């Protein structure tokens, strides 16, 4: 909350500064609010010529299904067994050059990027509990490491929000060189990734950037770029060479969508990371009321700690690395959080309204998940889906919830030997 507010204050100051520059364009302040918000785009005309808000649900669901199908196709084509890079080491590079103060995003590109990076970091750790993130900024032609690779979302968010100022040019090469330096140190089983959020339309480099791109490729660093202005050849080239994704955001919601696409683990490519067995400890929670000095903060804590099974040192939080013996300490729920990536549920089939007459299925009139009536005849939105395995019907809302959050098919789960 606090962070968000500070960010907004920052953004507003930015706006005020920029106001003087933009005035030259000849748009009055009141005109600008219409030109930027495009409020007419959220309306559509129906048969009788009346204006109605666009029915987002159907659109949203269609979009969701497209994404799901693309995902299913991607996993089927590679291997029968799904392998994903579940242990990721990701550097997020935020471009804080002059271009980040542009106001085509509201209040500024920088503020929008910061807001969504915060959401992304939380989502990332939710989906990849054993992974690490580091933050980096580009400013005045120099890349700067903001936070080291680490597993705590709070520290990253805090560091980013404290450093939201932009100036100078952007340098892709300096950023890549610095990331390269850090990422070559990580263990061989980890997946090395860079995600660059690039606002500028140019890069100001000290040497040959093509060489840097080849270096990244050699070190198996997967580079992805999300552009905020327009497509650039060098970014596209970088992503193609290193197997990353290149996308350019159209607006804020599109940017958010593109960013969150990077949260689920990418398919594991054998040559990118060597499969290995990692030794891990599963510490038990100490009894309530026991007193011990924790090795991470060097403070006396009462109860609620975990004890490293190898060296018996006390740590406060999981997952972490034991400060004394270096053992990776996790709890079984952390591992279980990632299992849904390995056992995804199949996309549901859309059922056309004509199937309703089918006598075999006529009995089920409600969504199997939430008991909502799915055969509301008068309404034209009586679209619903069926699980290919258990043939149970679900409403569109449940379809989205099941695939995006629950990762269980209630129908299959409530039948033995499904």
């Amino acid at each position, binding site marked *: 909350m606090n962070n968000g507010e500070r960010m907004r204050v920052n953004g507003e100051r930015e706006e005020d500064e920029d106001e003087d520059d933009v005035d030259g364009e000849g748009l009055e302040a009141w005109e600008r609010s219409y030109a930027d918000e495009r409020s007419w785009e959220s309306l559509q005309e129906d048969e009788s010529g009346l204006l109605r808000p666009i029915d987002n649900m159907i659109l949203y669901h269609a979009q969701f299904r497209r994404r799901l199908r693309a995902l299913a196709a991607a996993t089927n084509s590679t291997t029968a067994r799904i392998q994903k890079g579940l242990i990721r080491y990701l550097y997020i590079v935020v471009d804080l050059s002059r271009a980040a103060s542009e106001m085509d995003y509201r209040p500024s590109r920088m503020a929008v990027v910061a807001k969504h990076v915060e959401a992304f970091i939380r989502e990332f750790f939710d989906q990849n509990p054993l992974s690490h993130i580091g933050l980096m900024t580009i400013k005045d032609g120099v890349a700067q490491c903001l936070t080291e690779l680490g597993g705590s979302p709070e520290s990253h968010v805090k560091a980013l929000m404290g450093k939201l100022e932009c100036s100078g040019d952007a340098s892709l090469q300096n950023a890549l060189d610095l990331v390269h330096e850090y990422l070559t*140190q990580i263990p061989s089983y980890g997946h090395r990734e860079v995600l660059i959020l690039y606002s500028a339309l140019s890069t100001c480099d000290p040497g040959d950037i093509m060489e840097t791109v080849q270096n990244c490729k050699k070190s198996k660093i997967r580079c992805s770029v999300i552009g905020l202005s327009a497509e650039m050849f060098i970014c596209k080239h970088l992503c193609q060479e290193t197997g990353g994704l290149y996308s350019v955001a159209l607006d804020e919601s599109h940017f958010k969508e593109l960013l969150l696409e990077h949260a689920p683990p990418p398919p594991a490519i054998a040559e990118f990371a060597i499969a*290995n067995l990692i030794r891990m400890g*599963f510490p*038990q929670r100490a009894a*309530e009321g026991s007193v011990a000095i924790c090795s991470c903060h060097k403070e006396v804590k009462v109860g609620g700690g975990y004890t490293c099974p190898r060296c018996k040192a006390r740590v406060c939080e999981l997952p972490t690395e034991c400060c004394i013996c270096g053992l990776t300490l996790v709890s079984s729920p952390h591992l*279980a959080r990632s299992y849904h990536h390995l056992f995804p549920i199949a996309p549901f089939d859309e059922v056309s309204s004509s199937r309703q007459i089918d006598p075999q299925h006529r009995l089920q009139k409600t969504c199997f998940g939430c008991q909502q009536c799915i055969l509301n005849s008068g309404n034209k939105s009586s679209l619903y889906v069926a699980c290919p395995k258990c043939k149970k019907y679900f409403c569109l809302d449940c379809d989205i919830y099941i695939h995006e959050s629950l990762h269980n098919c*209630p129908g299959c*789960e409530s039948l033995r030997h499904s």
Partner: protein
Amino acid sequence: MASVPSKLYADDVSLLVVLLDTNPLFWSSSSFSFSLFLSHVLAFLNSILLLNQLNQVVVIATGYNSCDYIYDSSLAANQSVENGRMPVLCANILQKLEEFLLKDEKLGKEESKGRIASSMLSGSLSMALCYIQRVFRSGLLHPQPRILCLQGAPDGPEQYVAVMNAIFSAQRSMVPIDSCYIGEHNSAFLQQASYITNGVYSKPQHLDGLFQYLLTIFATDLHSRSFLQLPKPVGVDFRASCFCHKSTIDLGYVCSVCLSIFCKHHKKCSTCGSVFGQAQSDVASTSDRKRKTPDS
């Protein structure tokens, strides 16, 4: 739920989704009879509905072969007031429960006897969460949902991934999973579920007083909970069990590709099929750390 927006919801209105274990294998071996259990639970459900006029109760049966909705107090059919001796709630639940038990038994006819005695907990949890999502969608004002598992049968290891998925989804949408375990040994699934979702786990010592346990621990709404001294989690076991022998370990090997857990070093992962590099385990990982520590 059509009439919902017109009502004013305070923070003490609850939606209680009860997952009722009807596993015949458990109840036939239990010293506490199912009918006695039901009489305690029905009294409890009645008192929940009486605590606040807007409270809502949904009952889902967790059977041996299937799961199904048994009762929903928001449905119009369940709201009529009758003059008969037995309250409408009890009559409806008992009737639906009987239908469900018959259906559940039929589904299991082909099954050979002597299988694992677990119930379909993952299914009923998933259904409950879908229902709660629908309540969340119904508007800004809705009752505070929570799930109560009345479970007796032991955990089914094959449901581990599905149950954990449901727990994490509940955690994300801030739905506490309370559990009252009636079986003999503690249920690791439910202990973890309650711990992760900030719910209450309780294993009543004297089943004759089940109603008292239910009323004192699980009847209060989420807002009032902060004023009560509820049972604290004691020693939730977060140790993992290895995939190869299903034994509980506190130090083990984890596949870097699929995060399967093994108790000793293997050449190939049995889950995802990836072949592991040279037998570097202890030595390599510590040397990696050593290299990392100076700059971190």
